[in-house]
């Protein structure tokens, strides 16, 4: 029988995958993908918990996470466009004038 | 005028703020006038002070942050009264003697702010208000050293600031803990020192708190091994900075011992007598030797300050009226004498722009007045009887002898070693033939310098011959302090070591 733990472990794994993505990506666009993975991991956990407790709050949270993810994408891409226009690249390593 | 203390504190502040408007050319006269008024006010304070009352007088108490127990709480007793007067006096004389022309306005205004802070430290009876003035005094001093000092001025001023700042922050933690203890006993927050006095603390708390306060005070004094900021500060500071620093700022530390450490932690103070005496002896002997090795006149006097402060600290922990009164008197005398010596060094620095002894020699022939006053202050500094320097030193050593003859004999070497470095300094600078061509045409003291120095000479003689008007109020307050400590002490050791004098026993 698939229990809550199964879903949560899955969620944990997805989260770790997202984390790895964030940590290793140098292309900003692809880095954003990884954040989506992380948020999705949380969504899975919420939906599963919601299911196993028979409580709808989890689904609510998941909705809002989706909304937030969407907004983030909008703003993130807006920023990327500005950045790209100015610098012509999305490579993180070019984004280190401020340091120290 | 019951609120004379507030006036004393805030008059220089307001004068300083208003001074921003005063024209640059008139600022010097403005500053001196303000300082004169302040000095007169302090004399007024003395004249209306009741010398037979050992307690706090002119008390003002206005709740400031009642929820946190912070009050605007001022008062003065025999212990602080004269330090206040000396502060006003030294500021005045220092200001008269200023020879700096550059940015004089800023200098004068800084001095006025500094005066406010200094007076504030000595009259506050609330720990936080005390701390407030204590810390604030660093700021103008930082500016004075940093802006008008020698080549290493910035290093010296920052070192001065950070070093003392660090120590006092630890002290602040101690204060907060003290307030907490008071609160846990009485249920009310209070930072008022007089409230704290009533608090009987367990000995281990006393020890920890003693150490916390000690760090704050010791760095200020400065006690070995926390003294190294002082030679830099003095070496780089302009004359006025050194004068104020030596005369007043250092006294804050020893005053703190008397005001806080002794009455708050009588048992711990008694237990710490020997460690502190050891440090004091190191200060006395070690710094006297270091002073002997100096090549710079000002550095000699700077290190000699440390050495003398060692005697003062020793007296503070003598635990009898002779020693403690002597120590407070010595604070005054050291303030006046070292202040005068720094003024004197400033005199030749102004003329030659060097303070190296090797540059001089035979000045006694060229500048006889200068030599006379210098020699006079030198004798006061080495504690010649009938000068102000003797009374305090004698009392301190006398007082501490009761606790430990060995320590006293070691500390007594100050009269020998002090003579060694001071006379060597005097010989190298003033005696012998005039070898340096540049020294042959030096002018003797001018009117301005005489105005600044002669009053100090008179005070040195006056208080050397007739210290009673000053010593008696001090002694009264000290006796009541010791009686209080003895009552409060819990350990038999403390009861044994704290010696009450006959007169205070009768008073009970």
């Amino acid at each position, binding site marked *: 029988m698939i229990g809550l733990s199964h879903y949560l472990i899955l969620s944990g794994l997805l989260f770790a995958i997202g984390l790895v993505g*964030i*940590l290793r990506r*140098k292309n900003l666009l692809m*880095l954003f993908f990884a954040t989506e993975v992380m948020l999705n991991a949380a969504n899975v956990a919420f939906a599963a918990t919601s299911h196993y407790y028979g409580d709808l709050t989890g689904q609510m949270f998941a909705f809002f996470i989706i909304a937030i993810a969407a907004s983030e994408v909008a703003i993130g891409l807006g920023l990327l466009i500005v950045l790209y226009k100015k610098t012509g690249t999305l490579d*993180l390593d070019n*984004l*280190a004038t401020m*340091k120290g | 005028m019951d609120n004379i203390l507030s006036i004393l504190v805030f008059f220089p502040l307001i004068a300083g703020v208003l001074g921003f408007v005063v024209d640059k050319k008139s600022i010097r006269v403005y500053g001196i006038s303000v300082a004169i008024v302040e000095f007169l006010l302090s004399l007024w304070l003395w004249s209306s002070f009741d010398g037979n009352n050992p307690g706090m007088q002119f008390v003002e108490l206005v709740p400031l942050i009642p929820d946190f127990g912070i009050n605007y709480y001022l008062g003065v007793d025999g212990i602080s009264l004269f330090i206040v007067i000396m502060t006003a006096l030294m500021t005045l004389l220092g200001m008269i003697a200023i020879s700096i022309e550059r940015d004089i306005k800023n200098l004068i205004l800084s001095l006025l702010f500094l005066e406010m802070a200094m007076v504030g430290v000595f009259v506050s009876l609330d720990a936080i208000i005390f701390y407030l003035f204590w810390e604030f005094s660093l700021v103008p001093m930082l500016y004075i050293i940093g802006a008008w000092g020698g080549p290493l001025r910035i290093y010296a001023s920052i070192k001065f600031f950070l*070093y003392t700042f660090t120590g006092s922050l630890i002290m602040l933690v101690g204060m907060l803990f003290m307030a907490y203890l008071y609160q846990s006993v009485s249920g009310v927050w209070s930072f008022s020192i007089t409230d704290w006095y009533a608090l009987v603390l367990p000995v281990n708390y006393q020890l920890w708190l003693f150490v916390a306060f000690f760090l704050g005070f010791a760095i200020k004094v400065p006690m*070995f*091994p926390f*003294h190294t900021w002082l030679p830099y500060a003095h070496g780089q500071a302009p004359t006025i900075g050194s004068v104020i620093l030596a005369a007043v700022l250092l006294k804050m530390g020893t005053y703190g011992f008397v005001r806080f450490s002794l009455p708050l932690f009588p048992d711990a103070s008694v237990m710490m007598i020997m460690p502190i005496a050891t440090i004091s002896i190191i200060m006395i002997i*070690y710094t006297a*030797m*270091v002073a*002997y*090795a*100096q090549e710079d006149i000002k550095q000699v006097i700077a290190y000699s300050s440390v050495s003398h402060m060692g005697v003062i600290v020793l007296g503070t922990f003598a635990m009898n*009226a*002779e020693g403690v*009164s*002597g120590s407070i008197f010595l604070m005054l005398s050291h303030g006046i004498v070292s202040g005068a010596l720094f003024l004197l060094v400033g005199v030749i620095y102004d003329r030659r722009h060097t303070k190296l002894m090797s540059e001089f020699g*035979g000045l*006694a022939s060229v500048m*006889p007045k200068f030599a006379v006053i210098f020699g006079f202050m030198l*004798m006061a500094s*080495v504690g*010649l*009887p*009938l000068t102000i320097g*003797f*009374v305090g030193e*004698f009392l301190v*050593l*006398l007082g501490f*002898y*009761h606790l430990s*003859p060995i320590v*006293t*004999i070691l500390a*007594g*070497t100050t*009269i*020998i070693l002090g*003579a060694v470095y001071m*006379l060597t300094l005097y*010989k190298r600078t003033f*005696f*012998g*033939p*005039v070898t340096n061509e540049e020294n042959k045409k030096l002018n003797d003291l001018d009117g301005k310098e005489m105005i600044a120095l002669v009053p100090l000479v008179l005070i040195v003689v006056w208080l050397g011959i*007739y*210290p*009673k008007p000053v*010593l*008696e109020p001090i*002694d009264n307050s000290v006796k009541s302090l010791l009686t209080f400590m003895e009552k409060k002490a819990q350990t038999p050791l403390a009861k044994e070591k704290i010696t009450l*004098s*006959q*007169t205070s026993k009768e008073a009970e």
Partner: protein
Amino acid sequence: MEKYLYIALFAPLASSLFAALFGMSPKKMFVGVIASILLGISFLASVVLALYVNQTGEGIHVTMMEWIGAGDLLVPFGFLVDQVSVTMMVVVTLVSTVVHIYSIGYMDHDKSFNRFFSYLSAFVFSMLVLVMSDNFAGLFIGWEGVGVCSWLLIGFWYHKPDVSVEENPSISPSWAANEAFIVNRIADLGMLVGIFILFWNTGSLQYDVVFAQIPHLSEAVLVAAATALFIGAMGKSAQFPLHTWLTDAMEGPTPVSALIHAATMVTAGVFLVIRANPIFMVTPDVSYFIAALGTFVAFFAASMALVNRDLKRIIAYSTLSQLGYMFAAAGLGAYWIALFHLAAHAFFKALLFLGAGNVMHAMHDELDIFKMGGLKKSMRWTYIYMGVASLALAGIPPLAGFFSKDAIIETAFNEGRLILWAILVLTAGMTAFYSFRQVFLTFEGDRRYEEFGIHPHEMYKFVLIAMAPLAILAVIAGFFQSAFHSFITQLLPNYEMSAHTHHLVWILGAIVLAFAVGGIALAWIKYSKGLKRSEKVENGFLYKLLKNQYYIPKFYADFISKPYAMISELLWKSVDMKIVDATVDGIARLLYNGGDSARKMQTGNLSNNLNWMGVGLVSLLLVATITALIG
């Protein structure tokens, strides 16, 4: 009578302050005159007081005002004129009056004439405070006061440069002044400790209170107090090992040497022992030590005087030697004899010094007796004065020295201290020898000075007249021995020779006299015809040892001064700067550099930033997991 007390005390102060007013002006004759007159007034007042005390047999005790009052300590400015102090007052004011007048002539050409009188009078004031004070703290005021005046006066010619030790053993006046001050300070510490001991055990510093308490004090306390006080006395009276400053102090003008370093200040130590006799009387061990040390110093100083070539230094050594005699007497309990010798010595020694001053004046400050000789023609009066003084010093009857010194030697015999007696007798012979060696080398024989182109001349008349009282006293003082005895023993414990000694007194006296005459005769034989130097003797070990003052100054220089300077330098440059300060700066630098390296984590690279966050999360998770699993 109090009026006279104050006059006697404050006239010198007035004189000093008056002279100080003109301290920076060029020479003003009236300053010297007025100072001398004021001193004379002081002397007269002292004499009046002495007569009063003699008449009534009571002292005068006044308390002028309170000085220091703290805790239980109450020190007033109190003055006591009793037999002891009045004796000292008369001696001091008399000698100083003479010296003041003398100085008018001697300092004639000095541009700091006025300043000199200011210092000199200040010294007299301090000395009077010292002897008149009714408590130990007051005594200490005078004690330090004379120290400072001594410093000022030794260093009076401060402008002279430092020279090497070979050229001048005292290096320079300012060096000698500092040495004197510092050495005295060492002893003063002992004195202070003595004062502290007395205060904490008796609760007061007043003589009468303290002495009244003595029976209640433990022996340890008394021994400690006596020792400490004697250490103080050793400094002022230049007893071994603190004696080196006295000969160096001869750098000062000669009147100073006469007044301070012969007649008055250096006897302060003896005065202290006499003053505090109740303490020393109950501490026989300390007293015996004092006597032994005094005897030793008497011999030790005399031995150095044997070979010295410096006119003033020879007299200085003789002073040292005589101080030893006084301590021997005081240590043996014959306080009145010590005081008597003190007074007598003051007269003839001051005379001797002033005579030396005349010679110096004539010889243009040349002091080497090997360069003098045959001065008797041009300086007859001086020769007479110095001859008389030397005879007195040698102890030739009926001059003053005979009575006082002989009594001391007798005392040693009487006490059964035969070794001390023998040494003292021997020393008496040496004293006679070196005194007359000096006199003869100076005044007799060939005129060695001529090759240096010096034309000596006698001192001013008024100066010579002023010296007369001293000469007279040097001659006749001894006759007052018994009168003085009855006067002084009203206060001081009486000391009488035992019957046994009394029987032998003539024999003893004869032995001493024989030594003295022998010494003079030897000197006459060797030196009256002129200087004969013997290479062999001068290169001998003993001669060199004596000439170099037993190498003690060198020892002090090499093993105290130089190491002190070296250690000071080391403490400053290595310990203070390199350890203490460097630690502080090190902490600061550590923080700064730590911050600077920590900045490297701020690469500015977003990827790194994210990694830091990842690392943070994982480490927190890791710690949390471990905690959860353990706990």
